[in-house]
C-alpha cells in the first residue's frame, strides 16, 4: 500500500471517461462487481513517474451526486466512506470541453466533499472545431484546482495528467463555493448538531433516500431528527442548491471560456435531420439491425465451423493417444466437447458486442431511444428498453443489467421481465440443429425454408416480449413516478481502443463466467450417464449377452446394445425415464427430457447433453446431427425428430425460461424472488402449453 495512490475517475456519461481510463491503464485493468450488487467495477493500475503506481477506479458515469440509480449510488457510497479501501486520495473529474458547464456541476459537488480534485477537460481536439477557447490559469484559480487538457483521440495531455496525479498533494481540498447559503438557518443548525462532520456530506445523506449500505447506520438515524423539513421542502432546497451552483459556474465560465459560434461547424444538426427523421430514421435503424443479424449469422459461421471441427479432431486425437480408461473417456466425451460448446460462441458474442459498443460509442443509441420511446410506451416499456431488447439477442444477462438507466421502476421491471423472451445466442445452437433436422431444404421466393424458420423464431421471440409487456402493463398495479431524460450526445467516431477493450472484456467474461458452468455441468452429466446403480447397470454385459445369445449378432451390434442398455440404467437414464410421462405428450423421449432438464442451467447445454448422451459408449465418429436423425421413436416408430416433435421443441425453447443465470440476475436486480419465480412459472407453462398444442396438432 506504501506508494500506491488511490485515484477515482468520476464524470458525466459521454465525456470519454472510459477513454481516459483506457489511456491511463491500457491492458492493466480488470472488471469485476461491487460486492453484493451487479454494478460493474472497473479498476486498473497506472505507472506514474518515479516508480509510483496509481490504483485507478473508473466509477459509473453520473450527472451529479444526487443518485437516481444503483450505478450512481456506487459513486456516492465510495466518496462518503473514508474507511473504504478504495477511498480516493485524489478524485479526477473528467469533463467534455463542449459541455463544460454541465460537467462542472458534478465537479463543484465533489469539491464540497473536500477531496483533492483534478479536473480533466477531455476532447480538447474539438475546441478549434467548435470555436471554443479557454483561459486555463483563470479557471484553475477560480475552481481551486489543477486542470489537465486532454485529448484521448490525439493522445495528448495524458502525461500531464499523470504528473498531476503524482503531485496530488499539491491539489487544493478547499471547496470552490459555499452551497450552504441556500438556507443559512437550516445549515447552521446542522453544523451545531454535528460539529465534526462535513456539512455537505450530511446534506447528501439527508437528501438521498437511496440505501446507504456502507455508511454508519447510527449516524443516519441521528440525522432522521433533522428531516424536519418535508420532502417537497428538501427538494426545493436541492433545486436552489443546483441553481446556486450553476450561477457560480456561469460566472466562472463567462470569463474563462469564450465560444465563437461563427467558427463552430455543426455536424450534429445535419446527421440528426436524417437519423431522427420520421421515415429515414426508422429505415436506417432497420437497416442497421439487418446488418448486425447478417454479421452474427453469416460472418461468424466460418470461425464457428472451424472451431467445431478443431474440437472434434482434438477429441479423436486424444482418444487415440491417451491410455484407455475412465478418465480418458471423461476427457474425450465430457470435457473436450464441453469446452467446444463454450468456445464456439465466441465469434457471435464478439460480433454482437462489437456492434453494440460501436452504436453506443458513436452516440447513435440515444437517437434510437428517442425514436422508439413513444412506440415502446404503448406496451408499457420505455424508449430505453430498446437497448436491453437488442442486447438480449446476445444474452439476457447483460441485457437485464442494461435496464438500469430506465428511470421509471414499472417500465424497468416490465423490461426485465420480458427481455428473456428475445432470442438469445444460447438458443441458436438448439434452433440450428433442430431446424436442420426437421425443416426441408427447399426455397420459397428465393429464401430458404430453414432461414425463414429461423427468422420466424426471432419474430416470435420479439412478439412474445412485446405482448407480455402489454399484458404486464395492464396487470401490474405499480405506481411509479415516470420520467424520462436522455442526453443526446455528440456524434463521435468510436475509438478503436475502447471498442476493442469492450469486446475483449465481454468475451472474456462469457468464457470464464458462463463457460465454467457449462464445463461443470458437462462433467456431471458425463458422470451420471457413465455410472449407474444396481445390477442392471453393472452387469449389463452379462444380461445383454444372455438375452441376445440366440441371435447371431456381430460384436459391434452387441456392443451397441450393451451401451444403450447401460445408458438406460445409468443415473441419468433412470431420472430421464421418471420424467418421461410429463414430456411424452410433447413428442419427446427421455433423452430429450434429460437434455431439457440439464439445459435449464443454460440453453446451449441442450445440444451438448444430447452429444454427451449419444456419444457415451459410442465409438464411431458420426456427427451429433446424424445420430439425432437416426434416433427412433420408441413407441410410434419412425424418426424421433420429425416435423411435429421438432416444431414442438423449437417452440418450447422459444418461450421457456431455460436459464438459471438469468433468474439469478433478475433476482439480484429486483431484489426479490417474486419476480424471477413469476417469470419462471409463466414462461415455462407458456412453453409447455404451446409445445403441447403444436405437437398434438401436427402429429
Amino acid at each position, binding site marked *: 500500500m506504501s506508494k500506491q495512490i488511490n485515484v477515482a475517475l468520476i464524470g458525466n456519461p459521454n465525456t470519454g471517461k472510459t477513454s481516459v481510463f483506457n489511456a491511463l491503464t491500457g491492458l492493466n485493468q480488470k472488471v469485476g462487481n461491487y460486492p453484493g450488487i451487479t454494478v460493474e467495477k472497473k479498476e486498473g493500475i497506472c505507472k506514474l513517474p518515479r516508480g509510483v503506481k496509481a490504483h485507478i477506479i473508473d466509477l459509473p458515469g453520473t*450527472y*451529479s451526486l*444526487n443518485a*437516481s440509480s444503483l450505478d450512481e449510488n456506487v459513486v456516492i457510497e465510495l466518496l462518503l466512506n473514508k474507511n473504504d479501501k478504495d477511498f480516493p486520495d485524489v478524485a479526477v473529474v473528467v469533463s467534455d470541453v*463542449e*459541455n463544460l*458547464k*454541465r460537467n462542472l*456541476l458534478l465537479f463543484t459537488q465533489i469539491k464540497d466533499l473536500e477531496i483533492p480534485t483534478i479536473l480533466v477537460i477531455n476532447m480538447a481536439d474539438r475546441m478549434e472545431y467548435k470555436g471554443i477557447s479557454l483561459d486555463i490559469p483563470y479557471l484553475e484559480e477560480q475552481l481551486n484546482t489543477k486542470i489537465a487538457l486532454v485529448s484521448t483521440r490525439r493522445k495528448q495531455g495524458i502525461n500531464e495528467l499523470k504528473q498531476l496525479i503524482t503531485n496530488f498533494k499539491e491539489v487544493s481540498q478547499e471547496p470552490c463555493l459555499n452551497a450552504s447559503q441556500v438556507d443559512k438557518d437550516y445549515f447552521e443548525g446542522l453544523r451545531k448538531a454535528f460539529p465534526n462532520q462535513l456539512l455537505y456530506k450530511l446534506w447528501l445523506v439527508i437528501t438521498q433516500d437511496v440505501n446507504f449500505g456502507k455508511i454508519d447506520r447510527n449516524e443516519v438515524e441521528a440525522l432522521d431528527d433533522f428531516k424536519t423539513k418535508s420532502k*417537497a421542502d428538501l*427538494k*426545493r432546497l*436541492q*433545486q436552489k442548491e*443546483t*441553481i446556486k451552483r*450553476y450561477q457560480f459556474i456561469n460566472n466562472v465560465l463567462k470569463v474563462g471560456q469564450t465560444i465563437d459560434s461563427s467558427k463552430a461547424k455543426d455536424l*450534429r*444538426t445535419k446527421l*440528426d*435531420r436524417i437519423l*431522427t427523421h*420520421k421515415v429515414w430514421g426508422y429505415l436506417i435503424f432497420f437497416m442497421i439491425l439487418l446488418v448486425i443479424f447478417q454479421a452474427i449469422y453469416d460472418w461468424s459461421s466460418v470461425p464457428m465451423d472451424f472451431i467445431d471441427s478443431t474440437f472434434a479432431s482434438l477429441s479423436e486425437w486424444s482418444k487415440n493417444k491417451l491410455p484407455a480408461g475412465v478418465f480418458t473417456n471423461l476427457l474425450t466425451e465430457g470435457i473436450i466437447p464441453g469446452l467446444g460448446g463454450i468456445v464456439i460462441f465466441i465469434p457471435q458474442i464478439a460480433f454482437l458486442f462489437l456492434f453494440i459498443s460501436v452504436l453506443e460509442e458513436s452516440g447513435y443509441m*440515444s437517437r434510437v*431511444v*428517442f*425514436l422508439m*420511446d*413513444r412506440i415502446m410506451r404503448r406496451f408499457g416499456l420505455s*424508449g430505453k428498453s430498446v437497448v436491453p431488447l437488442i442486447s438480449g439477442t446476445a444474452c439476457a444477462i447483460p441485457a437485464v443489467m442494461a435496464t438500469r438507466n430506465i*428511470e421509471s421502476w414499472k417500465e424497468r421491471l416490465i423490461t426485465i421481465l420480458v427481455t428473456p423472451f428475445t432470442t438469445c445466442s444460447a438458443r441458436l445452437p438448439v434452433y440450428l440443429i433442430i431446424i436442420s433436422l426437421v425443416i426441408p431444404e427447399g426455397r420459397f421466393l428465393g429464401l430458404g425454408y430453414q432461414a425463414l424458420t429461423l427468422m420466424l423464431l426471432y419474430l416470435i421471440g420479439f412478439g412474445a416480449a412485446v405482448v407480455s409487456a402489454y399484458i404486464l402493463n395492464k396487470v401490474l398495479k405499480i405506481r411509479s*413516478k*415516470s*420520467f*424520462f*431524460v*436522455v*442526453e*443526446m*450526445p*455528440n456524434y463521435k467516431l468510436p475509438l478503436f481502443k475502447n471498442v476493442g477493450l469492450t469486446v475483449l472484456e465481454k468475451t472474456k467474461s462469457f468464457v470464464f463466467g458462463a463457460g465454467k458452468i457449462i464445463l461443470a455441468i458437462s462433467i456431471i452429466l458425463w458422470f451420471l450417464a457413465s455410472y449407474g446403480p444396481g445390477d442392471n447397470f453393472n452387469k449389463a454385459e452379462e444380461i445383454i449377452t444372455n438375452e441376445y445369445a440366440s441371435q447371431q449378432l456381430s460384436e459391434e451390434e452387441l456392443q451397441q446394445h450393451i451401451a444403450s442398455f447401460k445408458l438406460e440404467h445409468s443415473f441419468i437414464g433412470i431420472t430421464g425415464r421418471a420424467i418421461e410421462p410429463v414430456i411424452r405428450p410433447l413428442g419427446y423421449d427421455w433423452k430429450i427430457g434429460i437434455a431439457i432438464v440439464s439445459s435449464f442451467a443454460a440453453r446451449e447445454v441442450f445440444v451438448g447433453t444430447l452429444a454427451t448422451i449419444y456419444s457415451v459408449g459410442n465409438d464411431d465418429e458420426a456427427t451429433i446431427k446424424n445420430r439425432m436423425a437416426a434416433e427412433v421413436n420408441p413407441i410410434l416408430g419412425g424418426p424421433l425428430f420429425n416435423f411435429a416433435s421438432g416444431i414442438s421443441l423449437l417452440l418450447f425453447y422459444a418461450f421457456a425460461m431455460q436459464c438459471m443465470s438469468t433468474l439469478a440476475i433478475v433476482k439480484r436486480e429486483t431484489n426479490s424472488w417474486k419476480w424471477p419465480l413469476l417469470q419462471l412459472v409463466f414462461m415455462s407453462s407458456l412453453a409447455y402449453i404451446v409445445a403441447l398444442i403444436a405437437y398434438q396438432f401436427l402429429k
Partner: protein
Amino acid sequence: MRHTLAHLKRGEKATITDVSSIHIPLKLLEMGCLPGNTVELVQLAPFQDPMYLNINGSHLAIRKETAKHILIEKVDE
C-alpha cells in the same frame, strides 16, 4: 396564457421561466434546465413525443408529460 415547453414548435426558441413543479426531476435541472436558460426544440419524434431539446448547449430528450410542467416565455425572432 401560461406557456409551457410542451407548446413549443420545431425550431422555436424560448426562455425557461419556472421549473419549481415537483413533477420535474432534479436530474433535469442538473442537466441545465434552469430558469433564464434558452431552450430550442430541435426535433420531435413521431406522435410529437418525446421532444429533443437544446438547453444552453446541452442536448437532451424529454417526454411531453414532463415538458408540460416547465414554464417558458417565447422568444420572438
